């Protein structure tokens, strides 16, 4: 009965395993297989033997090994710690494949040998202990590559991996499985990578030269370069040299791989995009592939400068739509940059992209440009006019023309313009303090407050009857008070007066202009004007900081007004049960102590004299008192419940109220 049962089980298992070969098992079959394997030792043994063969066959025929290789085209995040683990697994898999490959080799002295290139075939055999990825020298001069037939030197043994000694005779079928190409590829990749030792030890070596001559030319370039960058950190120059050499050798696939890996490794260099495309063109890639490659490179452009390079290159490549997208992004990130608009305008004009032209011209015209960039403004104006007239000419686009015109009108409007002009042989500087506290001057021609100083005007050797001027323009400014300082640097102006002209909402419907002839008393003149209806709403980073200070000042002012109000009428809030309660906003400032000397130097117009102005400052801090501002405002007890100073000043409180809520820094319990 037992024998019959075993036989039955054997047949049943056989049937189930066959069924599994032919297709997926049904639920009942699966359950039965589990029962058999779980309960019958013999069935389990047979199942395991069968499954082991199945698994070994799958492994042996390298599908598994190949799939375990890392897939290079995916973008790589920066190299350190966490990522290393994945590499190790991949490395382990590569080495596993290598070990397997070694084991397939013909064994024994009589075994058939795989035909090898002469320089490899002549190397002496090494033992199994040598089967590991040997370390590649970080930089190998070209002259060190052994010519075929030259005597071997120490250290060349790594080339002999393919000829590892064999164990047991094998026939030709094995040779067919372990193809020489594959073994050589694996061998050279392992040599290139230095996987096991380098990565496990967590080393990354900086190298000045990439040993191109050691490059496994028949390997997948992406894999090769990924492995190389995981192990080494070549300098920019090394990458450049390597690319140059590879281009000369026409190894375009490696050029592409190297550049891609560099970009992924955050080593972008401006020329890379161009070389990448050239190499792809030379390699016969389709335009779609090239576009995709360049676009994927964009993922690694992590700063506006790189994006700008890439955008400019895309434009040259004819990827106009993409280029425009790139420029718009850059313009958004860096609103004060000229380049995105300049390049964008060029691309849009070439492609007749009206929307692009509109964006670029409005971008250009809505900003003020310094004298150095006057041509940008003129070009923007010219193109805008041209586009406008073309839009107007066509009835279909008339509405579009009107819209564009309105946008242009708004773009060319300037919230405020300050022009200082003078005659005479002199240099006058104009400084404007904007509401956020930023100061626009020749030294700081662009401020985060939006102001632009167009240029430094002064009299030159040639007489100019029109006089000279300095102009401050704020295309989109904040509402508030603008303080204008006119300062004489050198020389004398005619009649000691300068003309100051302020235009608010210049070119706008609410344009407002006033001009003054201001005498320069003590070489300086002040002028203050308020701007209302400023169009500046968004904030730049710098301005946010300035704005924070501004808010602080506003709060301080509010506190001060409360204090003043309470001082004026302490009984005013009494009916509400709050005897003049106020809040306090501590303001931290730095007080200089000791002797300070500030010096400024001015060179005369004829360059013969230097006028030095020195400002000595001696300051000392006489007395320091601290106090607690958090007092019980609701107690109603006038004696004990002090509610701050009530605007009477700190010294007065100390003198009059003694210990009430006040602490003396001397540590005497608040009794000054």
């Amino acid at each position, binding site marked *: 009965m037992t024998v019959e049962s075993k036989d039955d089980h*054997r047949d049943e298992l*056989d049937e189930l*395993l*066959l069924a*599994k*070969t*032919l297709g997926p*098992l049904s*639920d009942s079959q*699966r359950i039965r*297989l*589990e029962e058999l*394997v*779980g309960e019958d*030792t*013999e069935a*389990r*043994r*047979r*199942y*395991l*033997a*069968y*499954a*082991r*063969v*199945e*698994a*070994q*066959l*799958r*492994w*042996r*025929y*390298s*599908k*598994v090994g190949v799939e*375990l290789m890392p897939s290079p085209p995916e973008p790589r995040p920066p190299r350190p710690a966490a990522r290393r*683990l*994945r590499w190790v*697994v991949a*490395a*382990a*898999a590569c*080495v*596993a494949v290598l070990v*397997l490959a070694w*084991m*397939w080799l013909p064994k024994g002295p009589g075994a058939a040998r795989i035909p090898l290139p002469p320089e490899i075939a002549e190397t002496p055999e090494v033992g199994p202990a040598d089967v590991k990825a040997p370390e590649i020298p970080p930089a190998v001069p070209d002259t060190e590559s052994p010519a075929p037939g030259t005597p071997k030197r120490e250290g060349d043994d790594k080339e002999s991996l393919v000829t590892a000694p064999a*164990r*047991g005779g*094998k*026939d030709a*079928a*094995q040779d067919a*499985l372990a193809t020489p190409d594959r073994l050589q590829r694996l061998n050279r990749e392992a040599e290139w990578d230095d996987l*096991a*030792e380098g990565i*496990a*030890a967590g080393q990354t070596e900086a190298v000045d030269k990439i040993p191109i001559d050691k490059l496994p030319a028949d390997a997948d370039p992406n894999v090769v370069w990924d492995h190389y960058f995981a192990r080494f950190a070549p300098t920019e120059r090394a990458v450049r040299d390597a690319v140059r050499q590879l281009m000369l050798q026409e190894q375009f696939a490696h050029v592409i791989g190297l550049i891609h890996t560099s970009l992924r490794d955050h080593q972008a260099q401006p020329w890379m995009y161009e070389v990448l495309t050239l190499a792809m063109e030379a390699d016969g890639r389709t335009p779609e592939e090239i576009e995709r490659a360049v676009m994927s490179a964009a993922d690694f452009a992590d700063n506006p400068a790189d994006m700008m390079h890439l955008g400019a290159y895309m434009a040259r490549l004819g990827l106009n739509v993409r280029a425009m997208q790139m420029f718009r992004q850059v313009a958004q990130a860096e609103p004060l940059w000229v380049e995105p608009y300049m390049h964008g305008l060029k691309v849009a004009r070439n492609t007749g992209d009206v929307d692009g032209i509109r964006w670029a011209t409005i971008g250009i015209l809505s900003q003020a440009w310094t004298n150095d960039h006057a041509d940008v403004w003129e070009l923007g104006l010219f193109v805008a006019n041209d586009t406008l007239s073309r839009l107007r000419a066509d009835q279909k686009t008339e509405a579009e023309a009107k819209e564009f015109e309105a946008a242009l009108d708004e773009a060319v409007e300037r919230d405020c313009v300050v022009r200082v002009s003078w005659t005479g042989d002199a240099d006058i500087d104009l400084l404007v303090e904007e509401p956020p506290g930023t100061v626009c001057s020749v030294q700081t021609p662009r401020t985060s407050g939006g102001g632009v100083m167009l240029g430094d005007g002064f009299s030159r050797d040639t007489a100019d009857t029109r006089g000279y001027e300095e102009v401050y323009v704020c295309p989109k400014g904040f509402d508030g008070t603008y303080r204008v300082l006119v300062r004489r640097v050198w020389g004398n102006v005619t009649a000691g007066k300068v003309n100051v002209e302020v235009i608010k909402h210049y070119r706008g419907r609410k344009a407002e202009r006033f001009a003054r002839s201001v005498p320069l008393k003590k070489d300086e003149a002040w002028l203050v004007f308020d701007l209302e209806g400023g169009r500046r709403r968004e904030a730049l980073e710098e301005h946010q900081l300035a704005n924070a200070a501004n808010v602080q000042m506003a709060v301080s002012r509010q506190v001060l007004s409360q204090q003043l109000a309470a001082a004026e009428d302490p009984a005013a809030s009494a009916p509400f049960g709050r005897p003049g309660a106020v809040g306090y906003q501590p303001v931290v400032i730095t007080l200089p102590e000791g002797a300070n000397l500030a010096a400024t130097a001015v060179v005369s117009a004829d360059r013969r004299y230097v006028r030095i102005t020195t400002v000595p400052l001696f300051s000392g801090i006489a007395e320091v008192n601290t106090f607690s501002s958090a007092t019980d405002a609701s107690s109603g007890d006038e004696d004990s419940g002090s509610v701050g100073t009530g605007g009477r000043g700190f010294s007065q409180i100390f003198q009059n109220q003694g210990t009430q809520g006040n602490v003396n820094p001397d540590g005497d319990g608040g009794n000054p």
Partner: protein
Amino acid sequence: MDPESAASYVQHLTGCQNQLYAYIYSLLGNAEIALDVLQETNVVLWSKAAEYDPARPFVAWALGVAFHQVRAARTRLGRDRLVFHNLNTLETLTDDWLADTPSNLEIALDDCLNQLSPKNQQIVERYYKQSESLSSIGKALNRTANAVGVMLHRIRKKLAQCIEAALGPLGGNPSEI
């Protein structure tokens, strides 16, 4: 971990990949899932490198880790994608594996493959190396897909017998498979 230990660890890890794969495959019965679980096992093995005691046999330790990964996969994937779902079955199979983990399987397999007839070798190569389907091989050999499946099944049985004869049985006496 010092570089020397790390190198030795990597050597161990890479050396037992095929055994690990075979073990995982035998427990899960699905080649693709087994591959995934092998990857996960490798990751865990690497992260636990510091915990490994060099005095212990590496393969047994690695199989222990792999077992936990198989259990996790079993929970994750559910019943319908795996052959075995009962934890006891998995444990029993693992015990049998741990009882005998031959390291020279590849050599034995090499020998056994060479003993196959050229036609059978061709089927093996087409199915595993070139990933051809049973029906595709059948067309080439002028057979039905099922006939090829049966042939493949017999080839595996033959190979299993041959390997057992060479290495000894897995946890028992050699007998007919």
